[in-house]
């Protein structure tokens, strides 16, 4: 993991002092709420329906056990004993008091954490593959470049007041777990013909009310030019992105109106001036950051572990968890464990303080004290010895974190929705809870197989409904909550935007509708087909038939 040096520490501490001063100016009345708003947003502090909400950055989703314990402490000391992990791999606290937020930030600074740029029209937390460093299909650990981008983008003087927020994702693997094609900039590590490692640069993707799949602006960008190329894109966008309409201000709208060819020319022209500037990354700087992410010292182990096989045979619950929540590791004898934050009937992504403490302890015992937050709102322990899986599972079960549903239907993404958010039209979390209760039989979920349901409470699409196999979008119809359903979306390397199936369903009917869709899928799927395959083959028609014929 990256460790702060004196420069990083100084910056974060100075930022805490600066914010304390701003909060004091607000509390004394020197600043009005209007004047304070942009300042607090730069520190991740939102004013929501009921209270302030503080969003703390988890850079590229990687946490140490020490940091996780501090989050547990913050949840206990300043909040109602829990936190909410988000689709940006961050964590939100929903009940902090304004006057205590500087203290929270000071506590977080002690463990190298902050809330810088978790909101506002700036470059947000760079996200990445939750299996980084452990995945077998990886070219290089993408977090090295996430950290380089984190530093470059932190308090970037030119890009603090962009037309709109700006999100970058990086993946180093062939299988895209970071949804890079639906980001403002997506970086896919690749090799050129000479075998050198660099990036395919994708630009102008995004969800929100206008979902767009990003387009490739550059097939191959050598590593040392990463920052100058990003700066060129951002500089073009900062000058030309629309500022007259909030909903047309993202870079995807600019890229679409310019056309990718013309946008590329603008960027390459800008780049030609700054390519050889101080932005060029020295190779020794890349190596310095790489050192922080060097793999843990693995033991030489057999890949087949007898005690694991015995336990799987003896304990059906354990076997079921291994089947869904354990993934292949590149190192023989090791595995990647996903900790589901989607127990039946609970809000997706929530974790209590005692669960956070328990995960911190388990990571310390079994996974080199390192934890990942996933954009699907789960946690991951990336380097677990197969021989330790049973002990890990037992520890997770003790704190109700052993739900064996990773990747299954009940592993849903849902935004906070109308229960918390003042933008929402409809509730998200109760719908997710009702769906997971309807499908609470895990055998049934296993039979259905991998299925991604994503729920957004409004058109801003924080729940990523456009890229769900089944997407639910909350809409307001004459004061009542309705849900528009899209089918066939996907956020991986075969990115697709879901298609609207037909008229929206009421809050009461939406769970029946989801069940009808699942039944239709099961009826039509051929052996081994995933939802997207079946959907591509049969189209919307049979789903429409089932959903609307009877109603």
């Amino acid at each position, binding site marked *: 993991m990256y460790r702060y040096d004196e420069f990083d520490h100084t*910056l974060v501490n100075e930022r805490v002092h600066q914010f304390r001063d701003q909060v004091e100016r607000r509390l004394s009345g020197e600043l009005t709420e209007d004047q304070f708003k942009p300042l607090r947003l730069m520190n991740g502090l939102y004013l929501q329906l009921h209270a302030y909400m503080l969003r703390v950055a988890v850079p590229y989703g990687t946490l140490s056990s020490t940091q996780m314990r501090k989050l547990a402490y913050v949840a206990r000391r300043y909040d109602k004993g829990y936190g909410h992990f988000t689709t940006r791999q961050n964590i939100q606290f929903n009940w902090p008091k304004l006057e205590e937020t500087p203290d929270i930030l000071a506590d977080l600074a002690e463990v190298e954490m902050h809330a810088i740029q978790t909101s506002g029209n700036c470059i947000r937390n760079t996200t990445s593959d939750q299996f980084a460093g452990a995945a077998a299909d990886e070219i290089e650990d993408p977090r090295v470049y996430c950290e380089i981008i984190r530093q470059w983008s932190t308090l970037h003087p*030119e890009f*603090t007041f962009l037309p709109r927020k700006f999100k970058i994702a990086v993946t180093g693997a062939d299988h895209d777990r970071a949804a890079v094609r639906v980001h403002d900039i997506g970086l896919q590590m690749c090799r050129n013909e000479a075998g050198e490692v660099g990036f395919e640069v994708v630009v102008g993707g995004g969800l929100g009310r206008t979902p767009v799949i990003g387009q490739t602006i550059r097939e191959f960008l050598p590593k040392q030019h990463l920052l100058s190329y990003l700066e060129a894109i951002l500089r073009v966008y900062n000058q030309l992105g629309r500022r007259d309409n909030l909903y047309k201000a993202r870079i995807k709208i600019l890229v679409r109106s310019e056309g990718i060819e013309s946008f590329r020319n603008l960027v390459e022209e800008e780049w030609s001036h700054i390519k050889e500037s*101080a932005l060029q990354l020295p190779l020794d700087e890349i190596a310095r950051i790489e050192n922080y992410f060097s793999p843990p010292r693995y033991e030489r182990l057999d890949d087949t572990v007898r005690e694991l096989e015995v336990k799987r045979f003896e304990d059906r619950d354990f076997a079921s968890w291994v089947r869904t929540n354990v993934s292949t590791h590149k190192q023989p004898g090791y595995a990647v464990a996903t900790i589901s934050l989607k127990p039946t009937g609970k809000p997706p992504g929530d974790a209590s303080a005692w669960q956070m403490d328990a995960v911190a302890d388990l990571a310390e015992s079994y996974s080199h004290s390192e934890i990942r937050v996933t954009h699907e709102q789960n946690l991951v322990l990336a380097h677990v010895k197969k021989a330790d899986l049973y002990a890990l599972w037992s520890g997770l079960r003790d704190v109700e974190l052993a739900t064996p549903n990773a990747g299954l239907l009940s592993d849903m993404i849902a935004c906070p929705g109308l229960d918390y958010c003042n933008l929402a039209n409809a509730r998200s979390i109760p719908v997710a809870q009702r769906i997971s209760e309807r499908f609470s039989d895990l055998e049934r979920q296993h039979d259905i197989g991998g299925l991604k349901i994503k729920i957004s409470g409004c058109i801003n699409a924080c729940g990523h409904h456009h890229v769900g196999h089944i997407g639910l979008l909350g809409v307001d119809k004459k004061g009542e909550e309705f849900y528009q359903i899209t089918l066939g979306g996907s956020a991986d390397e075969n990115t697709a935007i879901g298609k609207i199936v037909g008229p929206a369903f009421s809050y009461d009917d939406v769970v029946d509708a989801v069940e009808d869709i699942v039944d239709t899928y099961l009826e039509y799927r051929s052996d081994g087909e995933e939802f997207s395959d079946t959907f591509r083959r049969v189209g919307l028609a049979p789903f429409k038939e089932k959903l609307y014929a009877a109603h």
Partner: protein
Amino acid sequence: MPLIKEGVLAEDSWQALADEDELVEGPIVVTLDRWQSEREALLSRNTPIGVRLKSDQTPALLADDLDRFAVVALEFPKFNDGRAYSYARLLRDRYAFKGEVRAVGNVLRDQFLLMQRCGFDAFEVANEAAAAAWEKAISEISVTYQPGADARRPALALRRNRPAA
């Protein structure tokens, strides 16, 4: 409007003219429109001249004329319209503009540091209290992670110059 230069309140020797204003003696700042329509007449006066750009007017429009100006004033119609940050970078880095780059409009103390880092060196502010806050505003964050148009050295350069541990 109070003007901050080099961190302190300074006399403003420039007069900003709207397009309908009569020309006056002494140094004047004109709009881009006026510059483009009255270029020759303005040059023939042989007094220092400045130009004021709106937030949708890039200095690239003036690239060939920049050496005629002692001041380029960049407008912030709202503090969160950030286009002028890029314009200032272009003036300093691309066009090597050596004159004054002045921030005008909704210019607030909380943005002084960002503006200075992008190459602004003069700031028209709403009141004198902003000037009193200057020193703190530009020094409360001492670390920079990226090269700018100012003299601050980014962490990367400082780290590389550090003696080996």
